[in-house]
């Protein structure tokens, strides 16, 4: 990417990502991932599946699932819809990169800054999630993702390592409210 003179801020408004170390639970703002939504075009699902496999090197995951191969991770978000993550440093313009890779079989939209991502985890993670959302995180395998609601905020929870490491994607404008809910729950459990 060309150098430009605008600094970036994190969803919580800082210049560097915020990290909260709470007993048994760590909350880390993560701004290192670029994000794009992908939807396969009508009646071109097979063509899309082939293009996606060719481009990403893996098959797009089914409902509730996550799949990936460096540098991409794909998260199922709806019927014929996915989010794809890639490192921000190398893929800031992820939507264009992916669209170029997939061609006409998919619609691709930049989502990077639509979302605040908190990487959360630690031994208290399942207990904290119990206070946050209706997801059965105890039963989530390490490659699962689901939409859910946390304190009235529509979120996507991605399980990175069963019962231990998760990412929460929440709307960027509500990052402060979401963060407050996470910290309050973690303090409550601790």
């Amino acid at each position, binding site marked *: *990417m060309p150098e430009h003179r605008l*600094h970036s*801020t994190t969803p919580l408004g800082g210049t560097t990502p915020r990290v909260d170390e709470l007993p048994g639970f760590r909350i880390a703002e993560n701004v290192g991932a670029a994000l794009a*939504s992908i939807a396969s075009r009508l009646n071109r699902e097979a063509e899309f599946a082939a293009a996606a496999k060719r481009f990403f090197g893996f098959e797009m995951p089914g409902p509730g699932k996550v799949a990936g191969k460096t540098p991409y991770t794909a998260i199922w978000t709806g019927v014929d819809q996915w989010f794809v993550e890639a490192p921000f440093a190398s893929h800031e313009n992820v939507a264009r990169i992916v669209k170029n890779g997939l061609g006409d079989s998919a619609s691709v939209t930049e989502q990077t800054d639509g979302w605040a991502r908190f990487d959360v985890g630690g031994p208290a993670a399942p207990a904290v999630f119990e206070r946050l959302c*209706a*997801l*059965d995180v105890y039963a989530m395998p390490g490659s699962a993702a689901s939409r859910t609601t946390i304190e009235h905020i529509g979120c996507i929870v991605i399980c990175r390592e069963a019962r231990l490491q998760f990412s929460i994607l929440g709307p960027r*404008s509500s990052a402060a409210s979401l963060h407050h809910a996470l910290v309050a729950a973690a303090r409550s459990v601790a």
Partner: protein
Amino acid sequence: MSQANRLAGGLIDRSRGISFSFDNKRYTGFAGDTLASALLANGERLMGRSFKYHRPRGPLTAGSDEPNALVELRQGAFREPNTRATVTELFEGLSATSQNRWPSLAFDALGINDLLSPFFSAGFYYKTFMWPKAFWEKVYEPLIRRAAGLGRLSMAPDPDVYDKGFLHCDLLVIGAGPTGLAAALTAARAGARVILADEDYEIGGRLNSETFVVGDTSGTDWARNHARVELLSMPNVRLMTRTTIIGTFDHGIYGALERVSDHLAHRAHGKPRQIFWRIYSKRAVLCAGAAERPIAFANNDRPGIMLAGALRSYVNRWAAAPARKVAVFTNNDDGLRTAADLVAKGVEVSAVIDTRADGAKVADADHFRGAQVIDTKGRLGLTSITVRLSTGETRTIACEALGVSGGWNPNVHLTCHQRGRPNWEPSIAAFVPGNCPPGMTVAGAARGVFSTAAALTSGAAAAREALAAIGIKALPADTPKAEDQPIRIEPLWHVGSAKGRAWVDLQNDVTVKDVKLAHQEGFRSVEHLKRYTTLGMATDQGKTSNMLGLVVMAEISGRSIPATGTTIYRPPYTPVPIAALAGRSCGRDFRPTRLTPSHKWASEQGAVFVEVGMWLRAQWLPRPGEIHWRQSVDREVLTTRSSVGICDVTTLGKIDVQGKDAAEFLNRIYANPFGKLAVGKVRYGLMLREDGMAMDDGTSARLAEDHFVTTTTTANAVAVFRHMEFCRQCLWPDLDVQIISTTEAWAQFSVAGPNARRLLQKIVDPQHDISNEAFPYMACGEISVCGGLRARLFRISFSGELAYEIAVPTRYGDALIRALVDAGKEFGAVVYGTEALGVMRIEKGHAAGNELNGTTTALNLGMGGMVSKKKDGIGSTLSEREGLNQPDALNLVGFRPLDVARPLTAGSHLISGRERAEAANDQGYITSVAFSPSLCHSVGLGFLKNGAARKGEVLRAVNPLKNEEVEVEVVSPHFVDPEGERLRA
């Protein structure tokens, strides 16, 4: 008094003395006590006054079904009324106050109500206070309200915090008595995810109140040291004490209230007092046990009279005798256990009154068979009972406590929450669960299986059966040996007596006579009986009284009990604080907020924020010296119109629309056509509802042949997206179109005013020509700014000025607002808030939420011509309805006051000439007003009948609410630059 009635033994920890106060008097108790058990041990039987008649009352039960012993717990803002002393764990420093009495518990002035009781019979409030009519609201109701009710709220915000949470399990076991423990052990050993919940702080249920042997040890020891230890050793089990399952909801969902720290003297900062859990279960076994019911007889409500099983609990579990001389009144074998246990504990049993002629004899007690208690004495506590012997002779027997047993009712409550109706079971003279909610089975005493051995096997079998249904195989349980005595009962509900009131519902002060009165007055269905007498409508949900009430009704009406039927229950099983239902969603955290990309910058400027939906938007940004908001707003407007202004418009909804059929999709969504919009152009679009009314408006920018960005109003962003998703998925699944919200992904700023282009030329990279020729009004494009950052530029205007909207990825939004402000310095640029935005759109005559109010059509808005006749769009057809196209239809017009010093008021109605200001003469109404700093007077927009043809006419804008009238002239809604020259400059 120091625990004069404390006995030996019990499950209390005598090494941990606890000091507490009741009505400011100091007492001591032990860890493991409840407030009620500790007070009884201290010789206090009187704990409250009744609801209506202020009768002195003591505990009737030893559990959550308690109707009498309700106290105010804790002090100050922490005070909680109507707390049941019988389930309140004692903690150091506990402070409780009796309620519903004045000036003191022993002498209550409102005890006069008791003497006036003939005036307060069932339904008295339907019959009295009828006249004069006007007195009801002003006099009677306030008086009654003051006299009625039990405890007092603190009237201060609750300082505690509460959590909500979600749990999941294969099997939810409700109740940790012998049945629940057997069920939980069976399921846990099979590897199922088990939640075992019990409202008590000890597991074991009735085992803790009995002297039963389970296996080769005491019931308590088995529960505590065998079952509990094994359950805690298994990771698939969650043992939740102090947790009441309060309701059964759809799809195996149960509500549970966990009292996390009610039993602690002080709560740690940030830690919840209670947690309201939503439990998702695949199956549930209800092991809620049974509750004893009283027998009604005259003056059966005196302190010291309690249920026989409760008496046994106090003596066995808490080693607290309510009195040193106790009698027992029973119609069944279980009542006799109380007498035997009292004797064993060394309490003097002055009499055992068994209504049955053939009941077993209890050693060491005067035993009267075939006898009944017919009256009692003792003003603030029981002193004697009058017994009618089988011979007909009456005898007065001195006693300070009386244990009463009328039999046991299975706790069917949770089976009723989805309208399950219990069935009558004559062998135990009680209702047992009928049809249960899907996924729920019932075991043990809750289904009428009363012996310990049967409870254990019933619990284990129910768990096996429940697990089998979800494909988990459990081994047959190896349940320990236990007592297996049948309970023989000869039903007796109330003792006939000529004098004295026999109480049925002690919490709501309903007597046998009240039930008879209800019948006499025609309220004969149990549902009517309940509502007319208020039987069972108190916070205890009539757990000890419903049965009795309906049986009395059955007797009077000559119908059988099953034919009379029973009322059913709804959640919650026991009261739940509203605060627990709210969880953390209170005060400032009631709902989440959304912050704009420029929020931090605006906060630094001291901006005043306004909530728009969940967004916090800058309303205006005061500068030093400005003391009134109008000064700030006027400055923002005038500077924008004369030079340049910047506004954060990120909050407007942005929807990315892609696909081969994207243009056709927009064609159908909007009233006006989009098919031929060129790439690199923006078009204003009006969205109609199916009924032809305007729904929302916005712009759509065509970034590529198959790619649009559609904007919505801030307020309707979600609704429009949902609408579009519905259209895409359900109406036209054959269109190749994909949509997704990108509202948050882009920080978008409006840059408006004659210097807008010059300002932006300092931001936009020089390879992008944004001159009027290269980038005319309604152009759009993907550009780069500030040395290479990808951005989007739209030449659209809400203010009526030469204006652009510029968007960058949100993480750069803070930097961009600072860069824009910096670049604007040479032009004296301002950043304006929503108020100035509103002023400018009114000056320009742009419709917004006030005009798109759900009742206006495109025609009303002056945009009738936009509804394309050449293509079909949602709402096009119905907008042609005759009624919507009358010559006198409302048209959007502008208004200016004749007296320019007078402000206009939104909501004013328009009246012609000297006509009366009434609905029949209504010509229309004003929707939006503002002070126009450009024109130096108030301006308004509004709807006027045939308004387009009435320019120049003078009308009266009438505001009857404030008794105001302003003469207004009808003008064009475009107060500023009606020809639109500025925005094309």
